[in-house]
């Protein structure tokens, strides 16, 4: 009797281990990752154009070996930018320790008003590791164009000053510096974290 129970326990144990192995080690590898954004085959590397941060010159390509996530916004931005930046901060939280291998950069589309110091204060409000960069109008225009981003001064109220309409997509640059993924504004923090994790490998 005792022996039979031992056998049953052994079989149950093996099944349990099998299920755990299948669920956590085999299934995730068989299941393709479903991207929140559009993955690009891309032979296109991010531009090396140098921009200015509060802590000195920065280019998107300074972080090779890390996944770089680039967003275009501005500090006076009323709604879209704070929403996106807090979503990006949430995705960093989801990534946990792996967030160390990710650099989030916001490029200002309002170089006339945003100083490097204002940008630093603004982006670090969302996450201490975020970097905010700006440059002269020509530099920002060139970088934005190459990231598929366009911006345009729009009317504002007297209180807020002018606002700027701009492309709200987030672009992911892989460890080798290639533009690899376009994430829509609507994507959730979980989706963004999942997509970043895929490119972390």
């Amino acid at each position, binding site marked *: 009797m005792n022996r039979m129970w031992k056998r049953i326990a052994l079989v149950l144990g093996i099944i349990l281990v099998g299920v755990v192995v299948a669920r956590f080690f085999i299934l995730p590898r068989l299941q393709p990752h479903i991207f929140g954004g559009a993955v690009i085959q891309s032979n296109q590397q991010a531009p090396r154009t140098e921009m200015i941060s509060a802590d000195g010159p920065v280019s998107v390509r300074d972080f090779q070996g890390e996944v770089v996530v680039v967003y275009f916004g501005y500090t006076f931005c009323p709604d879209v930018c704070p929403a996106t930046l807090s979503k990006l901060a949430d995705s960093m939280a989801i990534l946990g320790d792996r967030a160390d291998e990710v650099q989030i950069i916001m490029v200002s589309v309002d170089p006339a008003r945003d100083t490097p110091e204002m940008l630093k204060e603004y982006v670090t409000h969302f996450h201490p590791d975020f970097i905010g960069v700006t440059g002269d109008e*020509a530099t920002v225009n060139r970088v934005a*164009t*190459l990231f*598929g*981003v366009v911006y345009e001064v729009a009317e504002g109220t007297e209180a807020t000053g002018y606002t700027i309409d701009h492309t709200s997509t987030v672009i992911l640059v892989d460890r080798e510096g290639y533009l690899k993924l376009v994430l829509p504004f609507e994507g959730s923090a979980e989706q963004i974290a999942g997509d970043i994790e895929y490119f972390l490998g």
Partner: protein
Amino acid sequence: MRKKWIIRSVIPVVLLFIAVGAFVVFEPIQVLPRIRISPGYLLVNQDAETVTSEDVRGDIVLYSFTYSGCGEECIDIHNTMMEVQSRLGEVDTGDVDVRFMTISFDAETDTPEVLGEYAARLGADPDVWQFATGDAVHLENVVKAGFEVYYQEHADGDFSFAPVFILVDGWGVIRGEYRYQTNASDADKIVRHLDVLGEEVRNSHGAASLAYEAAHFFLCYP
């Protein structure tokens, strides 16, 4: 007993190979590669209205590049665009619009009026086809650096450039580049590709979108 075991373990592997082989050979799902990001732009069209890359987000756009002063060397470009325009009825892109955008690199000469006359002369359908140009420095960023279409202005005001057509999807990702003039008509190829893109747009929802992503993965990322 042992033989059975070997046969049993080999069968799934063989089936998998056949499945992948069939996928590659018969291409039940065709996809165009996602080549790279299409540049962002802010230009002015033939109606003196601002037109940006955001205005056409969600639409499939066919781009061509020229200038109104271009003579004989541009006949092929226009004929190709006109042929695609006349054959748009052949492609079904569901509820996604197909648009044409011809970007002129002669910002100085090609004012909205000039572009308007030019469009009318060619027979462009204003509901589908826009003509636009913009600030010279921005144009360099957009056309040369972004679309990778090279042009050079000469002292007499003429431009030399390579004829290129570029197909961009609703995500703002370049899906087709037609750079080399061969004996085969570019229009045939473009119409065929519009059809493939249309099919993807119409079908890649829910579970089918997984199949499309798999097709992208197998066929476009070797």
